[in-house]
């Protein structure tokens, strides 16, 4: 059984704004019977060009109906510009979250909204320059790229949860993988390099912080594997430690020191910490 939030259950059992608006200003329709879910969204604007009323009709599972209901509640009272900024994450958040496997329901809501706004503006709903990546569910590369960017997706499985792409025969998985790699590289480049601001520490502060970090972040994890570690001394940025317990004869202790202990200390204390082992 799906672990739906009370809010999802409420919007499924008592959906708001079911129906179709007569003489609507905009109508958006996404999905199909074959895909297993579909949403028809219609809205009407008031004289100030705000969304006065929004209604939906949905074919689909409980989370699809709840997402549609939530969407209509969210956009009421918004200008089209504001509504255009509503993301699928906003819909999911409104419902107190959706199971990850069901995130595509929130994406369907966002897509219907986009289509309805485009319909109002008289824009063609035909998406240009796209390629159908998933033939089973008719998902385009543009839709996949958008979902990856908006939801910070990292795996093919996640792309399937959010867009349904790859959820059928699975033949498009290599293609989706290639898109993820490309988009994530782009996202990496766009990210402004963030240097974590680490304050300049006095020697006393540094020693304290190293001790704290060891005690909180590092030693408990080592102990969980039957190991342990003692702080022997601190010389400038050099932290001298002795490995105890299982760690003392573990063949991967060098790896533990550099990859785990050192990187944790660099994260929490200072970027130029070096860890060295002192053997008794």
């Amino acid at each position, binding site marked *: 059984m799906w672990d739906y939030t009370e809010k999802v259950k409420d919007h*499924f059992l008592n959906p708001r704004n079911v129906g179709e608006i007569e003489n609507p200003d905009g109508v958006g329709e996404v999905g199909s*019977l074959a895909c*297993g*879910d*579909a949403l028809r969204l219609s809205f009407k604007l008031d004289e100030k060009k705000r969304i006065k009323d929004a209604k939906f*009709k949905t*074919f*689909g599972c409980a989370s699809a109906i709840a997402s549609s209901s939530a969407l209509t509640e969210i956009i009421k009272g918004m200008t089209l510009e504001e509504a255009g900024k509503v993301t699928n994450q906003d819909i999911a958040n409104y419902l107190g979250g959706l199971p990850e496997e*069901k995130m595509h329901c929130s994406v369907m809501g966002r897509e219907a909204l986009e289509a309805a706004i485009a319909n109002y503006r008289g824009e063609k709903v035909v998406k240009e320059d796209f390629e159908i990546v998933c033939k089973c569910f008719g998902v385009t590369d543009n839709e996949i790229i958008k979902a990856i960017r908006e939801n910070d997706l990292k795996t093919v499985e996640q792309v399937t949860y959010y867009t*349904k792409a790859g959820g059928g025969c699975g033949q498009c998985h290599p293609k989706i993988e290639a898109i993820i790699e490309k988009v994530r590289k782009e996202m990496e480049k766009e990210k402004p390099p963030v240097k974590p601001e680490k304050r300049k520490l006095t020697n006393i502060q540094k020693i304290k912080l190293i001790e704290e970090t060891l005690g909180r972040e590092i030693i408990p994890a080592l102990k969980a594997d039957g190991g342990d570690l003692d702080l022997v001394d601190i010389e400038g940025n050099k932290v001298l430690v002795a490995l105890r317990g299982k760690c003392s004869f573990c063949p991967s202790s060098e790896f533990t020191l550099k990859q785990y202990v050192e990187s944790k200390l660099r994260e929490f204390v200072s970027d130029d910490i070096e860890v060295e082992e002192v053997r008794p």
Partner: protein
Amino acid sequence: MKTVYVDNNATTKVAPEVLEEMLPFFSEYYGNPSSMHFFGGQVQKKVNEAREKVADFLGAESSEIVFTSCGTESDNAAILGTLDSYPEKRHLITTRVEHPAVGNLSTYLGRKGYRVTELSVDREGRLDLDELRESITDETTLVTIMYANNETGVIFPVEEIGEILKARGIPFHTDAVQAAGKIPLHLKKSTVDMLSISGHKLHAPKGIGVLYIRKGTKFSPFLIGGHQEKGRRGGTENVPYIIGLGKACELAKKNLEEENTRVKALRDYLESKLLEKIPNTLVNGDRKNRLPNTVSVSFEYVEGESILLLLSDLGICASSGSACTSGSLEPSHVLRAMGVPFTAAHGSIRFSLSVYNTKEEMDYIIEHLPPIIQRLRDISPFWKDYLKAQGKK
């Protein structure tokens, strides 16, 4: 809230008689049947009695009964144990509508280099035996075809299939997990070489299964270990559950007639009333060759998970072949293999009854399901479109 449990193809209630029979084997008689002392010996005796009850239920000999942990293990043991016995042959024949215990194992074997033939089914879920005949080659190691389908209840012509295979000297395994207890099985008179059953589908607890292996069938153990089960399945016997399954088989034999009369009548009543009260409803699967307790119905233009959750809200427990319930995105492989149209496949609901169901319960479903379907159709954009299109005609 009352609970109306009509999901017996998923699992069943442990019969009170079964539980009662099991309990002393947790507390008092906890010996190991393999032990030399009297304390183990008395347990050994009870395990043998249970084995005889299972054999009697299946119309087999007790030496042909191997206890396993579940239906999936029985299927895996039968298939892998046979393939292992014929290393020179590398072709497996099965169907497109098997339970994942067979279906996913076949896919795995396909990846490992076995040639796997999956027989198709028609719109009613029936096999074409000519397709089977044409698929058989000298390379064919094993044919594994389910006795009855878990989603639609459609029964395959197992004996006819067995005749075809016998003539070609090819071993035949059938997954009878859904058939056992619902239709009579007489393995002594049968053409089946191996057959799987699962305890929790016939009112024994989860965690016990049986693999029947006909005397003289080549078989290599799947769980390699001690001498238990005559060397065919290592591991200390799951004594309380074996005792429970023995009792459950005794009851199932007794209840077989009721399954095919009273339970069948309840199923037929439910089915006919739903068809009568809800427009655009269709039954999935061959209604002439079907388990007496199962009905799979599709309600067009609505989605199964929504139906299930609204039913669940009223205490009614059923299941669906729709995409959304399984976490996969496509409707069940069984309905797809049958070519059930998308308008209907997404809105399929399976009701599976047991001897514990009553007419009042059927009436409760018949009362509450039509408004649920209507409510969802009112939300669905396709229903109005459909009605409009009908109006124009």
